[in-house]
């Protein structure tokens, strides 16, 4: 049995990964989940390495998840967040990159409102770059943690029917998930109001629905998306209550899916909008498990990138 070696310097998106690479990350993450159950939840693997969290967009959850992941591997973590960062003071991204490079970090974890920023930094920086969400482009670690959560419950990805519901247009979570799930052989359905489903998305190999019920029918996995109320979502909808009436997931609609179907949500949830509390807190919900899997997946990503980095030097 020869395992595929990891040769990437950066983790920028699911789009660039082969099936073997995706499976390597998922398998590695599965082993890292065990570290969280130990009395000492820390291994010395990345001792003396520095991870810079560079978040140009606010995100407590993803940042904390990367922070815990890095610390469990014994790396040191430095946080740059948009509020205090120099971009507010007018610094260009290229200058920011040069400044970071001078501090000689081993990894930079980037979140930015514009697609392609992590890729640009990856070209400029010698250190490893992890995309923690760029515009509406990709959010690879989110798709990977969704996949480990699904595998944990279903034992596989291939052959499953996965329904993704909500703002398909502006969601990087959807893009990364479609790429990952179709690549691993799942049947993917997307559902949302016409204003929130981009034309031509079926070319990615997904079934498109503009009603919730047929998307849910017989699904193994239901992935509800966050309505981004602070961004574009409000202008694309007549009203929140109408959205909730047509696309909100409640216990009755959940019965359309398979009896053993699971419900995922990338968080933070708008309770009572896209999902009712009854479903979110119900027995089919694996939303909190996703958070735990997030740490394991991010540990796996940093670990694999560290191997490449060491091999290069």
């Amino acid at each position, binding site marked *: 049995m020869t395992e595929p070696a990891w040769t990437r310097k950066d983790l920028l998106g699911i789009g660039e990964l082969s099936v073997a690479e995706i499976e*390597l990350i998922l398998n590695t993450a599965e*082993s890292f989940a065990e570290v969280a159950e130990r*009395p000492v939840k820390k291994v010395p*693997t990345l001792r003396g390495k520095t991870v810079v969290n560079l978040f140009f967009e606010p995100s407590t959850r993803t940042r904390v998840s990367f922070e815990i992941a890095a610390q469990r591997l014994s790396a040191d973590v430095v946080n740059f967040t948009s509020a205090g960062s120099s971009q507010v003071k007018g610094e260009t991204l290229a200058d920011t990159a040069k400044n970071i490079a001078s501090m000689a970090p081993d990894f930079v974890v980037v979140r930015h409102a514009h697609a392609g920023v992590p890729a640009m930094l990856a070209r400029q920086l010698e250190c490893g770059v992890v995309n923690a969400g760029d515009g509406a482009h990709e959010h690879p670690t989110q798709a990977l943690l969704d996949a480990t959560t699904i595998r944990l419950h279903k034992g596989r990805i291939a052959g499953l029917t996965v329904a993704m519901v909500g703002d398909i247009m502006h969601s990087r979570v959807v893009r990364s998930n479609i790429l990952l799930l179709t690549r691993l052989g799942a049947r993917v359905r997307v559902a949302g109001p016409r204003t929130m489903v981009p034309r031509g998305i079926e070319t990615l190999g997904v079934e498109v629905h503009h009603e919730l019920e047929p998307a849910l029918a017989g699904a193994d996995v239901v992935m509800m998306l966050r309505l981004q109320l602070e961004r574009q979502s409000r202008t694309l909808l007549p009203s929140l209550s109408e959205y909730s009436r047509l696309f909100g997931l409640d216990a009755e609609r959940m019965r359309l899916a398979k009896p053993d179907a699971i419900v995922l949500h990338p968080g933070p949830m708008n309770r009572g909008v896209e999902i009712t509390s009854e479903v979110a807190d119900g027995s089919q919900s694996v939303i909190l498990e996703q958070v735990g899997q997030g740490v394991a997946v991010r540990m796996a990503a940093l670990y694999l990138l560290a191997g*490449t980095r*060491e091999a290069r030097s």
Partner: protein
Amino acid sequence: MNLVAKATILDAAETARVLRRMAGEIVEAQRGVEGLIIVGIRSRGVPMAEAICTEIERLEGKRPPMGTLDITLYRDDLSLIAPKPVVRESHLPEDIEGKVLVLCDDVLYTGRTARAALDALVDFGRPRAIRLAVLVDRGWRELPIHADFVGRKVPTRANEVIKVSFEAIDGETSVQILERQAEG
């Protein structure tokens, strides 16, 4: 780099006999099975630990609990990740506090694997003692580490490789000595 088989040191029957003797030495030293945990270091320390548990059960009428340890995350060389990136889970069957752990590994060479295993075990608790059992001690230590239970001492040259195979992983059980030859 080519590996050429030079000699078979132990065949399946001889390996079984050696492990039987080691199992006897372990229970003799610990005066039985009480408080004993056998821990296999992945990969080939695991079938070795299983064989030792089976032999101890035959001798004492009671099977000691067995754990597995993956030491990948405790290695002192990150450049080993790229060629062999897979990390597997570690599992210890019970609280190791106050127990005597016997670490099993197929080959003792530089001692770095054993050092990493000691670091890993300390993160799981504080055992009363940790002993080391190896099927083959090939010399060339780089750290002050020695084995308490040794199957065979095999003096080797630097260009030689000890290849241990177990049926559960490799389809057959044997210990071979190979020689590294430069290509061309």
